[in-house]
């Protein structure tokens, strides 16, 4: 059940030059959150539309979001200091469905990394992570994964950290090495998701992906967040954002 609440920013941290982390006092919204779900945050008077941000972590009454400044809305958000309250709608959408047994390989690319932290922490059978970044400066949340006891492999586009190349190569490495991995969960840019899916497919491991689309209501009422799935338009905010990769129309 989604809720609307005024959530106080308990802690605000800057993770990189353009990426921020907020710990929110979210009460029931935090307690009912599932990995892969998102919240819709009002970003100041001048912006009619809320901004969808993935749930990066939830513990007790606190909810964590990590976001990158992309435009006016996220720029406004980044300026909000600790102690202010945000108008938040959530938790929204359908999250990841964990396999009955086995480990989950969580795969994140860039600002697609945050939701994978929660997905890894909540995995009943444990998780390993493959994270891709543009470069060393863009790396986020590495310690959080390690603190959660989740082994991590990192790739970077320019080779400044970890494997030089794209994250799907790491996915192949993991699936080659570790046959106890029974599902791949991924969030990131669409071309990355497509390649991760291809890798998972080659190893016969089911894959779920978190999709992005521009939103209006965020709750399934306005039908603007259409995404082609299984030959028809599904709605990212309500039917997703997580979809089985084999059902997504990748073209």
């Amino acid at each position, binding site marked *: 059940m989604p809720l609307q609440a005024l959530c106080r920013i308990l802690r605000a941290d800057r993770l990189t030059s353009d990426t921020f982390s907020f710990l929110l006092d979210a009460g029931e919204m935090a307690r009912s959150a599932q990995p892969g779900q998102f919240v819709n945050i009002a970003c100041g008077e001048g912006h009619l539309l809320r901004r969808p941000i993935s749930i990066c972590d939830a513990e007790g009454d606190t909810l964590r979001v990590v976001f990158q400044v992309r435009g006016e809305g996220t720029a406004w958000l980044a300026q909000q200091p600790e102690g202010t309250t945000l108008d938040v709608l959530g938790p929204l959408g359908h999250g990841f469905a964990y396999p009955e047994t086995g480990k989950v390989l969580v795969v994140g690319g860039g600002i697609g990394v945050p939701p994978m932290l929660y997905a890894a922490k909540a995995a009943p059978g444990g998780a390993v992570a493959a994270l891709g970044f543009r470069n060393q400066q863009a790396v986020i949340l590495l310690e959080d994964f390690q603190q959660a006891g989740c082994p991590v492999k990192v790739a970077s586009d320019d080779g400044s950290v970890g494997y030089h190349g794209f994250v799907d190569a790491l996915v192949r490495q993991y699936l080659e090495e570790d046959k106890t991995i029974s599902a791949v969960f991924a969030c990131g840019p669409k071309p990355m998701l497509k390649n991760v899916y291809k890798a998972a497919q080659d190893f016969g491991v089911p894959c779920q992906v978190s999709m992005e689309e521009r939103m209006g209501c965020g709750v399934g009422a306005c039908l*603007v967040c259409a995404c082609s799935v299984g030959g028809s338009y599904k709605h990212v905010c309500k039917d997703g954002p997580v979809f089985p990769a084999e059902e997504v129309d990748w073209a």
Partner: protein
Amino acid sequence: MSVINGVEMGVTLAGMPMKNPIVVASGTFGFGREYGQFYDISELGGICCKGLTLHPREGNPPPRIAETPMGILNSVGLQNPGVDHFIAEELPYLRQHDLKVIANISGNTPEEYGVMCEKLSGAGVDMIEVNVSCPNVKCGGLQYGTVPEMTAEVTECAKKHAGNVPVMVKLSPNVTDITAIAKAVENAGADAVSLINTIRGMRIDVKTRRPVLHMNTGGLSGPAVLPVAVRMVWEVANAVNIPILGMGGVAKGEDAAQMLLAGATAVAVGTACFADPYAPLKVRDDLAALAAEQGLQSVSELTGGVKPW
């Protein structure tokens, strides 16, 4: 229930009594289920349901939305499950609640409007809102709502098949003279008019040089359109004698009061729901407070009360 802050909020729109004048606008509130998770939709006077077509429609490719100064552009393209699905699956849900159900329909031909009216009146909706902002396939895709004769033809067809259910025609603002269309609709027998639908607009991403919407253009709604909507409601109120459901950019009680003063009997809240799911209830309560402050017994005393210079 209909008295708030000592003010009688009940209104009657084309013979249809509502406990308050606030309804939600078509396409912004689905069939009530989603926002029904936040509050009991029986709090609303009514719901204009998502636009229905005779057959299910997939709608337009994304992106379907763009944010603009104090507004949004949308190009959903009437995605909907079709009128039969509505009657079988959505209407029973709505009927579990105490609010007026206004079905909103779009057709490719006047006959399609007729068929849908027959089905919906048979199923027992409270009112039918006829959206004429859709292309007439027989007339090379020209929008029905832009030509008085075509709008009148659709209205007559709808009336003929709607039985006792009142027919409200939803006017497009994308015309030179909205009163000409309103008069044509009144003469064709419409019981009410609603306005405004969205205003055609466009936004271009200067980096990619592509329009933000995949359809290139879309319909503008939200606070940006309020003054246009109030002006059109006022013009139409002066031109016809049938009641008006006013909408377009209403986000506050004061906005709703403007609509009523301009001549509307009831007011729809649309885009404002995206920013705040509770917007329709806040508009209702703020409107009641405003009416109380002005010492009114009944909110309907506002209707048409503007004092033009």
